[in-house]
């Protein structure tokens, strides 16, 4: 493609950004995405599905920016509930709460949110810029990553279970393995045989992610809060809200190299179709802990533990947006909805988007970048107020959390059984919490279990038992072994200390 054409497309894209209609719908999308994203269990796909029926009424430069902005800012709203309430707003935010919530308990909620917002804003922004640069080589990268490599990418994510363990690595591994086991409930596509469904239709698709998250985190935290009868924040802090926020901002720039590495991890995971957004923040968190000089501080309220996953979160979107636009391959359910939105607008994502509709593609990528900045700016204004949730008494917060979490669980599949599962699972969550078993490790295992099995059997079917004799697969195996080894060494050092 001629450089002149590309330049002209860029100029048109920047001009499109000044269109008042586009800006209106972009702001509307930011408002919807943030408002709904702040509600635990309801964020994620629900706001995107809400606006899908209106695609017909809108032009491409109105409807598509609307849905892209909703998708982009969902994680930012979700990170706030993860930090303030220990409830991930979307599954990728689950890694943020490991250190985010302890920071809130220490009275540093605003600092954590400030760090999270800057990380996700800049991470998303830079990822989109990287996406624009990588357009010519994207397809080559996607073609290189086969099912064999996917086995080890997922296994790499699983290996970080050992890193998520706190004082006892064995307990962390037990949690993670339990998560893997629970993920096997349901219909196995490879054989067509349902497992552990006990003849019920309800378990045919397995346990839903939202009921598991609500059961593991939202309800137990609400119960603990109600049992104390106080507030989430246990410590008074002298710093005023905005000062704390600025401290969080500075933290990101102080740890700029960690931020860049985490952003890259998120971006790379995002461009690989078929992994989903939940892996990247955990891998980033695990990487941050294993590469830190003070790994024992992770899990106690360490700001790096917030910067790493949040940098990866929104970076995933930049990568997956490019794959969806340029190849027509949605990497997640959210991208599948976006793909549907394109079609309803009369466009078919795929290679033609980068030839026949290059200016529109560039406009949408730039919208993704700009959204992160604007949403970040809006959030900064509200952080000092939002962080006061940590001081709301239990008698008000407990019922509100439960109402939102359990109603949101119902939204997921419109099955009352999911609400029952969430409450039942909350017993598991409470027990794990009380006995020092890592709930994020269980969640990670749950998210990755079926992915691992699927790619394993596909790889065995395609390449036989020696499917892993490939350069990228072997490199990933080495990295996995290193991660596990470092995790063991860090565990031993922590025990000696």
């Amino acid at each position, binding site marked *: 493609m001629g450089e002149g054409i590309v330049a002209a497309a860029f100029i048109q894209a920047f001009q499109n950004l000044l269109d008042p209609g586009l800006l209106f719908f972009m702001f509307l999308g930011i408002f919807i995405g943030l408002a709904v994203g702040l509600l635990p269990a309801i964020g994620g796909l629900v706001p995107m*599905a809400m606006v899908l029926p209106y695609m*017909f009424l809108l032009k491409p430069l109105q409807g598509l920016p609307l849905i892209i902005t909703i998708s982009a800012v969902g994680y930012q709203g979700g990170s706030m509930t993860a930090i303030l309430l220990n409830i991930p707003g979307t599954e990728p935010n689950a890694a943020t709460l490991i250190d985010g919530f302890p920071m809130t308990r220490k009275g540093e909620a605003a600092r954590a949110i400030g760090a999270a917002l800057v990380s996700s804003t800049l991470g998303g922004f830079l990822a989109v810029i990287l996406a624009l640069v990588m357009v010519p080589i994207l397809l080559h990268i996607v073609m290189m990553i086969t099912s064999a490599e996917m086995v080890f990418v997922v296994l790499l994510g699983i290996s970080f279970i050992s890193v998520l363990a706190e004082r006892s690595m064995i307990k962390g591994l037990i949690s993670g393995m339990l998560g893997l086991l629970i993920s096997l409930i349901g219909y196995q596509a*490879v054989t*067509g045989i349902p497992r552990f469904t006990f003849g019920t239709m309800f378990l*045919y698709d397995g346990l839903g992610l939202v009921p598991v998250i609500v059961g593991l985190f939202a309800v137990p935290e609400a119960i603990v809060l109600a049992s104390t009868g106080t507030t989430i924040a246990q410590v008074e802090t002298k710093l005023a809200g905005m000062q704390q926020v600025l401290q969080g901002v500075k933290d990101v720039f102080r740890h700029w190299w960690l931020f860049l590495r985490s952003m890259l991890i998120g971006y790379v995971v995002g461009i690989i179709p078929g992994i989903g957004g939940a892996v990247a923040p955990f891998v980033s968190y695990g990487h941050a802990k294993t590469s830190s000089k003070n790994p024992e501080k992770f899990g106690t309220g360490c700001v790096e533990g917030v910067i790493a996953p949040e940098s990866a979160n929104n970076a995933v979107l930049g990568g997956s947006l490019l794959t969806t636009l340029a190849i027509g391959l949605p990497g997640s359910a959210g991208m*599948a909805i976006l793909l549907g*939105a394109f079609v309803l607008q*009369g466009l*078919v994502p795929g290679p033609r988007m980068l030839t026949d509709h290059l200016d529109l593609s560039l406009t949408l990528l730039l919208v993704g970048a700009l959204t992160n900045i604007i949403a970040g700016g809006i959030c900064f204004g509200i952080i000092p107020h939002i962080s006061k949730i940590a001081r709301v008494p239990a008698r008000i917060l407990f019922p509100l959390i439960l109402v939102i979490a359990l109603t949101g669980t119902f939204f997921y599949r419109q099955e009352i059984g999911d609400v029952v599962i969430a409450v039942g699972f909350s017993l598991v969550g409470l027990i794990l919490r009380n006995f020092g078993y890592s709930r994020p490790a269980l969640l990670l295992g749950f998210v990755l279990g079926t992915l691992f099995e699927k790619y394993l059997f596909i790889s065995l079917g395609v390449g036989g038992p020696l499917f892993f004799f490939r350069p990228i697969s072997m490199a990933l195996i080495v990295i996995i072994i290193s991660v596990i080894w470092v995790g063991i060494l860090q565990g031993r050092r922590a025990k000696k200390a």
Partner: protein
Amino acid sequence: MKRIACALCFSVLVTAIFLSVQGKVAAESVADFYKKKPVTLVVTYGPGGGTDTAARIMASEWRNVTGGRMIIRNITGAGGIRGMNHMFRAKPDGRTLGYTDSASSLLGAVFFETPGIQFDARKFVYLAINAVVPNGIGISPRLSANSIQDLQKIEGLKFGSHAVDSQAACSALTIEIFGLKNARIVTGFGGMEEEGLALARGEIDAYSNSMHSMTDHIDKKFVKRVVLVYSDKRSSWFPDTPLPTELAELTPEQKRMFTIVASLKSAKPIFAPPGLSRDKTDFLRDAFSKIFNAKGYNEKMKVRFPIMGSDFYLSPAEWSKTVEEALSIPRTERDAFINVVKKYAM
């Protein structure tokens, strides 16, 4: 006494007037009914997919045809069976309609005895079929073959499939009919996009998919060409692509399997719960017929589903007959066929 008699007469008169007015209202009200009350179209798959997109395109034309509103509701799960079960239990008041893909959630699910089915596909009231697309076999661009005869020379071919389902059935029959040596079916792919990518990478050599998905994949260079069409006649979209029956002499058993596979083609029926009244059924059939002929509808459908046309068309009555025939296949034949599929897939 007189007062009681007057009161009784008055009551009878009022009742008679009321009933006659109701009768009159009922006769005029079907069109008004749909103008005033929104209709919910239950789509048995998630938002953004092909079935959902087609549903939303239909919904956008509904107002032009009826003056009323159509709301899309996605009830997903168990490969579409949850939505089908919901539709079977729904009230036949004409306000809840269903839309699905027959190969996976209707015929395919019943045929492969997916657990949890609580509906009888024969009892739904079929209103329209907005796409009938046969399956075919597509091959990878990394394969040196260009035809089924070329495939016969290659040993150890790998076909891709989501699960042990109608797709896998097509692939299994191809292996059986053409004696593809040591060929197998690799299951577990997450959907046609994953299979397309696997084809492009050369992880698998071929797959079975609906013809309109394959045109999309040909466009994206995931599929080199379509080498077979599973139908009783050639398709105008791929006029050079033969049918299995043109290339090989099928054994009686293979002929029966071919009939089954051809009936498991991808069709997208719009249907109502059992017991829908005759007048509403007629109205809805007419409405959907108008939608399918509307210019706006066809323009929007062409974007996402470039294979349009009446190559393979079925009326609701013909579709009901297809369902009846497919589900009347004797158990022994069905089991034998499923065993053939499992032989290559598991």
